[in-house]
């Protein structure tokens, strides 16, 4: 019997646990030229804000040791263009669609989520309360349990399908924030967004990105992400989508073992855009070899000392 890759998060069924992370797959058009999106459990869009945003001026990425720093600054087409130009493409895709929503005020989040509620093809919203690259909003929400709970409550009021809270690693206790989000009505967690970081050129003395600081992603942060996934898993019964530094099938398995029900691949796509296809294949092979019938035989099964 072929192992079953299907997973369910808040009632939504995914063909497999492999998703592409927000900001790392645009609105799906480019990846669709490289592999059928049916290979993905879900595609998570770039953060959508009420109004279009150009983002920060370039340079807005820098390479770091086994990772990268980015301060794209939530560049996106804005809600209206997203609905008129991107959704029609997305809803034709044979994969689940998760729209990542960001904003600089709570009212903005609410407005965007309420408009998205009308579009049935959108399966879930991922609430980005953790983007380190905007001055207002973003991080502040995700770093404060009270604001976190309030934000979740507000958007749950207007969006009637499941909402995933995307958590920031730049906090003293991610468990505390997760609990607040759960209290506010979150249906699942995405763990983690990028770590705050900085890069400087020792020759020119210049910071490497125009926003001076940015978000660190890539294999460098995987141990931090695994720890946070496991901490949230041990303290909440909501499903978790594990994110951070995935570059291989082993990485995916590690996240599942630590408690993730699904994973998202971000920076890894930049190096290998077809990585999800490879991982889906290798994950099946791994499960056959390990005689595990279902992804659920892996989730949270890490053996601790």
């Amino acid at each position: 019997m072929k192992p079953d890759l299907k997973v369910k998060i808040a009632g939504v069924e995914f063909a497999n646990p492999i998703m592409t992370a927000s900001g790392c797959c645009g609105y799906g058009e480019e990846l669709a030229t490289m592999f059928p999106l049916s290979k993905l459990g879900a595609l998570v869009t770039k953060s959508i804000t009420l109004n279009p945003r150009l983002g920060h001026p370039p340079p807005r990425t820098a390479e770091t040791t086994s990772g990268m720093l980015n301060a794209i600054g939530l560049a996106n087409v804005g809600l209206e263009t997203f609905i008129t130009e991107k959704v029609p493409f997305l809803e034709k895709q044979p994969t689940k669609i998760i729209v990542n929503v960001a904003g600089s005020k709570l009212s903005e989040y609410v407005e965007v989520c309420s408009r998205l509620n009308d579009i049935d093809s959108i399966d879930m919203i991922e609430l980005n309360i953790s983007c380190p690259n905007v001055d207002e909003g973003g991080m502040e929400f995700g770093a404060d349990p009270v604001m976190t709970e309030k934000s979740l409550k507000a958007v749950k009021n207007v969006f009637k399908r499941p909402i995933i809270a995307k958590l920031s690693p730049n906090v003293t206790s991610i468990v505390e924030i997760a609990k607040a989000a759960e209290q506010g009505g979150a249906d699942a967690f995405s763990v983690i967004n990028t770590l705050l970081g900085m890069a400087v050129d020792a020759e020119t003395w210049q910071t490497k990105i125009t926003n001076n600081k940015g978000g660190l992603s890539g294999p460098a942060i995987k141990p931090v992400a695994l720890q946070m996934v496991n901490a949230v898993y041990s303290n909440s019964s909501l499903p978790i989508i594990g994110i951070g530094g995935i570059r291989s099938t082993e990485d995916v398995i590690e996240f599942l073992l630590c408690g993730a029900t699904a994973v998202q691949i971000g920076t890894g796509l930049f190096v290998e855009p077809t990585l999800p296809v490879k991982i889906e294949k290798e994950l099946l092979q791994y499960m056959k070899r390990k005689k595990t019938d279902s992804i659920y035989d892996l989730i949270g099964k890490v053996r601790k000392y």
Partner: protein
Amino acid sequence: MIKPTCEDTFLLKKRNLKNRYFAYTFRPYTQVKKCKPGHFLQLQIPQTDIFFRRPFSIAGVTPAGDIEIIFKIFGKGTALLATLEKGDKVNLLGPLGVPFTLPKKNEKTILIAGGVGFPPLMYLAVEMIAKGYDPKSIEFFYGGRTTDDIIEKSRIKKLGVNFHPVTEDGSYGMKGLVTKPVEEFIQSSDTNMRIYSCGPTGMLKAADSLGLKYKIPGQLSLEAPMPCGVGICLGCVKEKTDGGHARVCCDGPVFEIGEIVL
């Protein structure tokens, strides 16, 4: 839009050109038929601690399935690339980007190359000639600081194009900056013309200005740091003259003269 592939290939031929330039030919490459001048590849430096791929213009392809790049050692990635040996495996993601549009048959083609901008323009000249353009309709301006910066001289000469090397120190060809003889050529010419340029920012700016000043259409191939090369990271953007951002990797790297703020 072309469907790029991610495929392993092998270093078939390594030529160590002077002045830290190398010409690498890889085989096999299944995408040769889809390659056009202006396309580039994202090459993964194998088994090293270099995280991102590095972009290189395609310098040429053969029907046999070979693909060539020419690169100069710039930083850590290219330095490691230069240590590869014949037979070594590399992974190529490509072909990527928007290629050059060929000129009209009645147009004089002005190529303005400099530094690592030379390979795509050589490929363009080769492709034009293969497509039946008269080599003598191609004016190949090639600028460098000194004679060592002008690589593959005999290869260009063999094409039969009008070759105009220009060096700042006069050690090879004309002396000075390449844009002066280009402007003189434009002023002295009365046919329709089209400009193609790839090279350092200063050169691109000058080519852009010349095109706008003399109302000559043309295209520029730009560079930017490219985390992904396929349009999904938004890291490579440049400002457009009419507002907004263009992604160099997939809206370019080839842009019309006047399109981008340089």
